[in-house]
């Protein structure tokens, strides 16, 4: 059996190389996010945001942009018989799950590096919220990537695959969104950064991450069977 870290590195490397070469997902996600900000500006008729409104707009936008990337996660495997290649290899099949989750976290991080500063420039009074926000983003990314990879791997083998991910994923990430926005809201108050219940909400995020990462890892083998 090939050691898991070799297989992990192979799959992750392959994905990143392909993405860097074709740039299919990242620019679309980033552009979508920035355009959404503009739509929110007009839709809400606000030029500055704070507190819960700011948190809501930011997280809703990141979520919908993430769905774009999640939809494309397994497309190469599906179109070019990639699933077969991985299933033929002497590897632990759950490695495909961890490698894809890692890839998705990297895409989401790249998205946030672009979108979040722009959000701050468009709507926030100060950048004080950004450093603590990094922790929230990181934890949320792990959960979103785990749930997203799980659903995406099933959706890719179905009809209407572009519809299935948003349909099933959105209710599934509601607890994640609740925790993320609740942690973010006090960071963006007009009066200054506050850490009200920050630790509690980070723990809820961590719990979500743990459950979905373990779940995905455990069932992935069954998903690749035939």
């Amino acid at each position: 059996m090939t050691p898991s870290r070799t297989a992990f590195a192979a799959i992750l490397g392959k994905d990143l190389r392909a993405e860097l070469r074709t740039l299919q997902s990242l620019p679309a996600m980033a552009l979508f996010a920035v355009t959404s900000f503009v739509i929110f500006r007009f839709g809400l008729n606000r030029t500055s945001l704070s507190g819960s409104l700011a948190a809501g707009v930011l997280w809703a936008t990141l979520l919908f942009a993430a769905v774009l990337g999640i939809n494309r996660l397994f497309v190469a495997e599906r179109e070019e018989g990639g699933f077969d290649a991985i299933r033929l290899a002497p590897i632990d099949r759950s490695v495909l799950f961890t490698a894809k989750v890692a890839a998705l976290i990297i895409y989401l991080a790249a998205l946030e590096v672009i979108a979040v500063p722009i959000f701050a420039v468009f709507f926030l009074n100060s950048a004080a919220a950004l450093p603590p926000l990094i922790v929230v983003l990181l934890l949320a990314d792990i959960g979103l990537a785990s749930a997203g990879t799980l659903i995406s791997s099933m959706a890719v083998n179905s009809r209407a695959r572009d519809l299935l991910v948003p349909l099933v994923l959105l209710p599934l990430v509601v607890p994640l969104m609740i925790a993320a926005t609740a942690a973010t809201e006090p960071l963006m108050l007009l009066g200054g950064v506050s850490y009200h219940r920050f630790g509690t909400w980070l723990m809820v995020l961590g719990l979500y991450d743990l459950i979905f990462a373990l779940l995905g890892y455990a069932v992935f083998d069954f998903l690749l069977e035939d």
Partner: protein
Amino acid sequence: MADDQKGAEAAIKLVGLRRVYGERAALEDVSLETAVGDSLVVLGPNGAGKTTLLRILATLLRPTGGEVRVLGCKLPDEAWKLRGRIGYLGHEPLLYRDLSGRENLRFHAKLHGITGARAEARIEELLDAVKLSHRGDERTFEFSAGMRQRLAICRCVLHEPELLLLDEPDSNLDIEGREIAHTLIGPGLGHTRVVVTHDPERHLPEADQVLRLDVNEPAAAR
């Protein structure tokens, strides 16, 4: 059992193999024994289950019933022991179109635990054999069907498998391509082969065993 004592366990042993899709039986009561190093040629009309049989042997599908032993491993329980010892060449080349030929082969090599200098040497050796060295760094997206097939053959034998499972290996290959294929996946090179084909004339001469599959009929190799 007698087989073990003879010291030559069959490479493939099927007893009453059955594969069912919902209500439809794709394979019904297939039995055969193929010795190590032999070539088994599988013939039959479309829909007879040839590809299904190959995929079961490749551990890509589970048998619904019957006994299946490949290279001494009982399927589906011991499928994990078998992977890495089989080379599968299916209808799809299993290549990523946005990666180059070399990158594709490196990826497959890594999945099989072959890395570093050893991988590079093997990749160059194979690309040379199929005459694709000069195009090894182009994206496979730009390859013709024949080139893709040749690269797929490289992928298939990269890890030096004991058993080759070939689904119409000559498709898309011109005469030169077929000769090249012969040197890598042809008979008499030491591996056991199962060849599914629509071209009996080409492959029957090299067969040690022939299996004719017909829709809805039990089959045994002759």
